[in-house]
């Protein structure tokens, strides 16, 4: 086991836990509520969507479209469609991911 990785994992675990537990000690409503108009509150509220959008873009391979409409592009489109359809029906993130993977797997099964 790599000790530096374990150290990072523990630090990340503590950091993640603190983001979930701190609002129970400190009243952050003033800073974080949707009605707050302070610059910090507005910036902070938008930082989450910005990071998720950035990580979504990061997760897409930039070379995906370099070979035209490949099986990878079609599989990705089918997977995304399944994710969106599941979201419309059940609004459950776990099920959305599962259906996306399942749709992509079925497509791969018939094309690989």
């Amino acid at each position, binding site marked *: *086991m*790599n000790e*530096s*990785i*374990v150290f*990072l*994992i*523990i*630090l*990340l675990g503590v*950091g*993640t*836990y603190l*983001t*979930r*537990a*701190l609002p*129970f000690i400190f009243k952050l*409503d003033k800073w*974080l*509520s949707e009605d707050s*108009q302070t610059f910090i509150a*507005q*910036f*902070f509220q*938008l*930082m*989450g*969507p*910005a*990071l*998720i*959008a*950035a*990580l*979504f*873009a*990061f997760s*897409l391979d*930039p070379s995906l479209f370099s070979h035209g409409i490949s099986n*990878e592009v079609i*599989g*990705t489109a089918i*997977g*995304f469609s399944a*994710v969106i359809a599941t*979201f419309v029906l*059940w609004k*459950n*993130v*776990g099920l*959305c*991911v*599962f259906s*996306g*993977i*399942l749709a*992509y797997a079925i497509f*791969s099964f018939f094309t*690989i």
Partner: protein
Amino acid sequence: MTNFFAGLRTSLPLIIGYFPVAVAFGISATSIGLSQLDATLISLIIFAGASQFAFVGLLAEGTSGLTAMLIVVGLNLRHLLYSTSISPALKGMSLKQKFSVAFGLTDEVFASAFGLLKNIPKGNRWSWLVGLELGAYCSWVIGTWIGASSGDLLLAKFGFLEPALAFALPALFLSLLLPMLVSAKASHSFIRNRTIITIISAMIIAFGANALGQATLGIFGAALISPLLGIALGKKHE
């Protein structure tokens, strides 16, 4: 005890949704060279799907551990909003009880609990929430362990699963983006909505930087520049 099992029953959709994603996480973690134990430890200690995938994805790209950690902590800041929002529903619980349920407040647990907690009598909420979180947590950790320990075998036998499992990361982030897009769509001016401007600009910055081989810089840039663009160009209450 009845409330605990009621929470556990409510966690069934989470268990079903988490399991294959956790298997995919276990496989992707070991595929970048982490041991089975490391991969399982990540799920055991962190228990945050998007953050774990981002952490492993960044390490795979050669990002330093410290930089990866900073990005992941930034990604986790949204949990502050969750706990702040759910806090009123936990009134009456001791601080110790609140701390014990804080660990399991993932995106999905929060989404499930937020709508349902108000229908549960105050005195029963803690055990109900523990049941809900425990179901999701067990599914996540066991799925990771199975993925990490049998990933190689699974992929050798069912090769078609490899590209599908690699799709878990974009599918996960799209699933997290969709509720934000839907709530922004509800406003009168979709195109001038701050969240929409922030999301689109962040995607452009990150995708462009990734194409130029500067993925980490792109993520940091998007996290800092896009909210500013959203505030400057968008309207909050249309």
